């Protein structure tokens, strides 16, 4: 299976549907194992931070969700380019499927960032560079979500979201830099949320496990949503009706 042939095969949603069943199962199980071990390890076994005490354990949820939220948007930017340049249907589905996941992860990152800020700085919301970038990212997700629902025709909505995703992705680094420059300038003494790698291994190992776990979860969830998009767009075709004859997907 050369890359070219894979690229060509990805063009047909039916082929993707057939091979994605096992892929979703594998990703889902790895995600479950990784997330459970990472969480239990982080909560119960990792030593408390000498300065912050136990509130730093929120890092094991905050950092992975923030990472996957940003990666999801970059994926959507790439899917947007593929859709606009090569008109591949699967790219449109990836764009549509990633928005709810990315938005929920961004909201989680924001909430856990605030929950971490309260014991650390005494306030639920602080205009710190990281929390602000995350807030702007949430608006970018909401814009994509609202634009897709505002346009009746699915094919047109897909292309419009692709243009917005590409323009958005170009702006993300500029937004991050300008926010970092402006807000860190204002609070130079702010404790940066992600501790520097100076953390001892038994502290950042669970973080790594959780991060890998949340990316696997992203993969499993994305494949699940893609299969649904394929079913909805191929509703009338024979292969869908024959496959569903058994009464399950």
């Amino acid at each position, binding site marked *: 299976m050369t890359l070219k042939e894979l690229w060509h095969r990805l063009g047909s949603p039916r082929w993707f549907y057939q091979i994605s069943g096992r892929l979703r199962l594998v990703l889902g199980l790895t995600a479950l194992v990784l997330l459970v071990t990472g969480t239990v390890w982080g909560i119960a076994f990792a030593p408390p931070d000498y300065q912050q005490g136990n509130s730093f354990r929120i890092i094991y949820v905050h950092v992975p969700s923030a990472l996957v939220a940003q990666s999801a948007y970059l994926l959507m930017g790439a899917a947007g380019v593929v859709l606009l340049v090569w008109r591949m249907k699967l790219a449109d589905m990836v764009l549509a499927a990633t928005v709810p996941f990315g938005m929920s992860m961004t909201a989680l990152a924001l909430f856990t960032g605030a929950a971490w800020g309260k014991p650390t700085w005494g306030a639920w919301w602080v205009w710190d560079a990281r929390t602000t970038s995350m807030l702007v990212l949430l608006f970018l997700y*909401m814009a994509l979500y609202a634009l897709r629902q*505002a*346009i009746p025709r699915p094919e047109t909505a897909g292309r*419009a979201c692709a243009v917005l995703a590409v323009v958005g992705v170009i702006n993300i680094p500029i937004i991050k830099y300008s926010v970092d420059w402006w807000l860190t*300038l204002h609070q130079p003494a702010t404790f940066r949320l992600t501790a520097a790698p100076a953390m001892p291994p038994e502290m950042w190992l669970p973080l790594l496990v959780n991060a890998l776990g949340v990316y696997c979860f992203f993969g499993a969830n994305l494949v699940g949503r893609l299969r649904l998009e394929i079913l909805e767009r191929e509703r009338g075709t024979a292969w869908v009706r024959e496959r569903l004859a058994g009464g399950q997907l």
Partner: protein
Amino acid sequence: MSRPPLPPPSQTGPVGVAGLFAAQLGREWVASLRTLAETLNPLVFLFLAVTLFALGVGGDAEALANQAGAILWVLVLLATLLTLEALFRRDYDDGTLEQLVLLGKPAFVPILAKLAVQWALSGLAMTVLAPAVGMLLFLPAEVLGLTMLTLLAGSPALTLLGAVAAALTVGLRRGGVLLALLALPLFVPTLIFGAGAISLAMAGVDVTGQLYWLLAISVLALTVAPFAVIAALRISLE
């Protein structure tokens, strides 16, 4: 009985690209002057909003003065947003937008001309009005010049990036709020460097770096936005 076909028009026709740009520029200018009230509404909004701020703060000079730059820049953002709503609306409704996208050879030339007039009547106009607005906000005189520079350097990016959002939402009935949701996140960097430069200048810090950043963002927008606008218009015209 085949007749010699019509002479195929040259790729850009006798008027050439410059002629096409000039024709579109002239058309937009005349159209804007014909509907002067509608064109000036956003500028009236700017003064209205400043008045609301002053009323809200209670006219206290000191409080207004040290936030004058931020207030001015945020209101310039919102006023630009108002101009963007009408940017493609009228041409979309009467069918000339379709013709512009179809006949423009190359298509980004008339679009650039249209955005140039749009910027002149919003960004540039607000730069010229900045002294008056600054006066209402007790903006310190020594930073007035710099404020106008930041507006001049930053406002093109607002019109260019906002035009992409306007093009995406022109076909929708109630596209107004969606336009704001799409455009404002893209305005964040320009706002940060614009307002930031003014407040730093008040503290006596040198802000040429910030001005270069404003200009860099505008130039980036100038290279990316026209093509994104055309793609978005073709999608909205489907």
